C-alpha cells in the first residue's frame, strides 16, 4: 500500500481511460501524456494500460508501506527514495517504509509513476482514471489517501535498466493536420496558425491547453451544430484563440475545429507549461 504524504499541485490516478463510451457523453480521460504512462508501465513489467499516478508539477511525497518496483517517466523530475537520488525513465526498487519524493520538473508538466502490479482504485466504466470534467473515477489524491497495489503475479520480468527519451523541446513545434472545419477559417488564419508563436495560458488543465497569441479569423459566420470532438482538436471559440483538447475534453462541441494534432503530438501538448511558447506546423 502507498500512502500519499503530499500530492503536489495535482495528482490523479490514470490508466488509458474509457474509450467506447463517448456516445454517452463520457470523455475518454486517461493519462494526458499516454506515451509517458505506457513507458512507465513497460519499465516495471506491467501491461501498458495499468493504472499509475499522474503528477502535475511534481512536488509529491509518497510513503511505501510495502516494497515495490517503480518507474517515473514524463516530465523529468528529481526523484528521491529515502533521500537517495533515483533516475527517471528507469526501474527503481523502493524498500518497505521508504519515502519517495518528487522535486519540481526541469521541463514539462506531467510526470507518471508506475508501480509493478499497478495501482488499485475502483473501476468506473472499465477505467480507474480520474476525469476532472465529468467527475467520473476516483477523486484527485490528497494527503493521507492510501493506494492499494495490484498483484505482480504473472507479470513479465523487469528487463530494461533505462529507457533514454529525447528531451522535451523548449519551444515545441507540434504537427497538425487540417481540421474537419478548416474551411470555416480564412487562408490567413491557417497561415497565422502555422507561423505564429502561441503562449500557453495559465488556465489550462486536463480538459484543454488554452493559448494566447494571434486570433484566427473566421471565413464565415453562423453556428456549427454540435459535433463529436477528438483529443488533440484545436477548437476555436469566438475569441479566435485555439484550445487544444486533452484527455478530459468534452465529447461534443459546437465551435469549429481548425486543425487536429497528430496523435503523437498530443503527448507533447500534455507537457506544455503555462507561459511556455509553442508553434504548429503541418
Amino acid at each position: 500500500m502507498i500512502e500519499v504524504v503530499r500530492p503536489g499541485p495535482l495528482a490523479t490516478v490514470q490508466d488509458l481511460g474509457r474509450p467506447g463510451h463517448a456516445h454517452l457523453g463520457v470523455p475518454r480521460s486517461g493519462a494526458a501524456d499516454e506515451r509517458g504512462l505506457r513507458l512507465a508501465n513497460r519499465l516495471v513489467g506491467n501491461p501498458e494500460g495499468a493504472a499509475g499516478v499522474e503528477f502535475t508539477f511534481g512536488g509529491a511525497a509518497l510513503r511505501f508501506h510495502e516494497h515495490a518496483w517503480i518507474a517515473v517517466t514524463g516530465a523529468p523530475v528529481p526523484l528521491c527514495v529515502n533521500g537517495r537520488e533515483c533516475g527517471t525513465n528507469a526501474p527503481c526498487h523502493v524498500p518497505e517504509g521508504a519515502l519517495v519524493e518528487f522535486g519540481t520538473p526541469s521541463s514539462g508538466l506531467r510526470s507518471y509513476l508506475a508501480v509493478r502490479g499497478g495501482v488499485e482504485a475502483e473501476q468506473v466504466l472499465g477505467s480507474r482514471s480520474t476525469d476532472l470534467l465529468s467527475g467520473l473515477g476516483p477523486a484527485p489524491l490528497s494527503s493521507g489517501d492510501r493506494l492499494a497495489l495490484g498483484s505482480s503475479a504473472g507479470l513479465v520480468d523487469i528487463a530494461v535498466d533505462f529507457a533514454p527519451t529525447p528531451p522535451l523541446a523548449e519551444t515545441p513545434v507540434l504537427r497538425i493536420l487540417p481540421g474537419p472545419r478548416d474551411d470555416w477559417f480564412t487562408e490567413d488564419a491557417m497561415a497565422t496558425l502555422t507561423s505564429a508563436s502561441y503562449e500557453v495560458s495559465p488556465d489550462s488543465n486536463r480538459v484543454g491547453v488554452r493559448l494566447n497569441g494571434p486570433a484566427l479569423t473566421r471565413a464565415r459566420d453562423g453556428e456549427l451544430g454540435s459535433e463529436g470532438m477528438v483529443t488533440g482538436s484545436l477548437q476555436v471559440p469566438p475569441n479566435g484563440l485555439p484550445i487544444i483538447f486533452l484527455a478530459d475534453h468534452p465529447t461534443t462541441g459546437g465551435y469549429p475545429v481548425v486543425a487536429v494534432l497528430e496523435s503523437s503530438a498530443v503527448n507533447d501538448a500534455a507537457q506544455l507549461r503555462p507561459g511556455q511558447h509553442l508553434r504548429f506546423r503541418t
Partner: protein
Amino acid sequence: MRVLRAGDAALLVETEDLATALRLNAALRDEGLPGVVDVVPGERTVLVMADTSADLDRLAARLPQLRLPADAADDADPVEVPVVYDGEDLDEVARLTGLSSDEVVRRHSAAFYTVAYLGFSPGFAYLTGLDPVLHVARRASPRTSVPVGSVAIAGPYAAVYPSRSPGGWRLLGRTGLRLWDETRDPPSLLRPGTRVRFVPEERS
C-alpha cells in the same frame, strides 16, 4: 454524405440531417467495423474514432457503402419520464412564450421526443421534438448548480440533467427517474435514437 478527416485516427461524417446521422450511427453499431473504437453522433454528423491499427482510407471508403436502416429510432417503447412540473423557470417560460404555465406543461408533455446525441456531461441527452412554440433561449447567466433530475429546455432541445452540474437551461420540473447510473450497463438510460415522453405527475 461527406467524409472529413478529424486527425490521423478519426473521420467526421457529415450527413444531410439528424435522422441520417442516427441511421448511420445505428449501422456502425450493428456492423462493428474492425478498429472502430467510438462512434459519436452529433446534430448532423457522426464522428468515427479508430484505433491506430485501422486504415482510415479504407474506412473512409467503406462508410458511404454501409446499408443504413430505414429508421434508426429505437423499436422499444419510449422511455417515459415522470415529471413534477414545479421548475423555477416555468413561469418565465410561460411569460417568454405568451402561454399559461399549464399550456407550457401541456405542450411539453404532449410531444414525442428522440435523443439526437449526448454530450455536455455523461448521460446528458439532447432531445429533439420540442414544440417550436417552446423554443426559448438559455438563461443569460447559467446556474452554478442544477439539481440532478431537472427537466429543462433550451433552444430547440429538451433534456433531463443526469447529474448535478452547472447549467443555463430553463428548468420546467424534475423527475425521480435515474437517467445515469455508472454501475448499470449501459449506464445511460438514454442513447442516440432513444424515444422519450414526459408524463406529468402530481406534486410530491
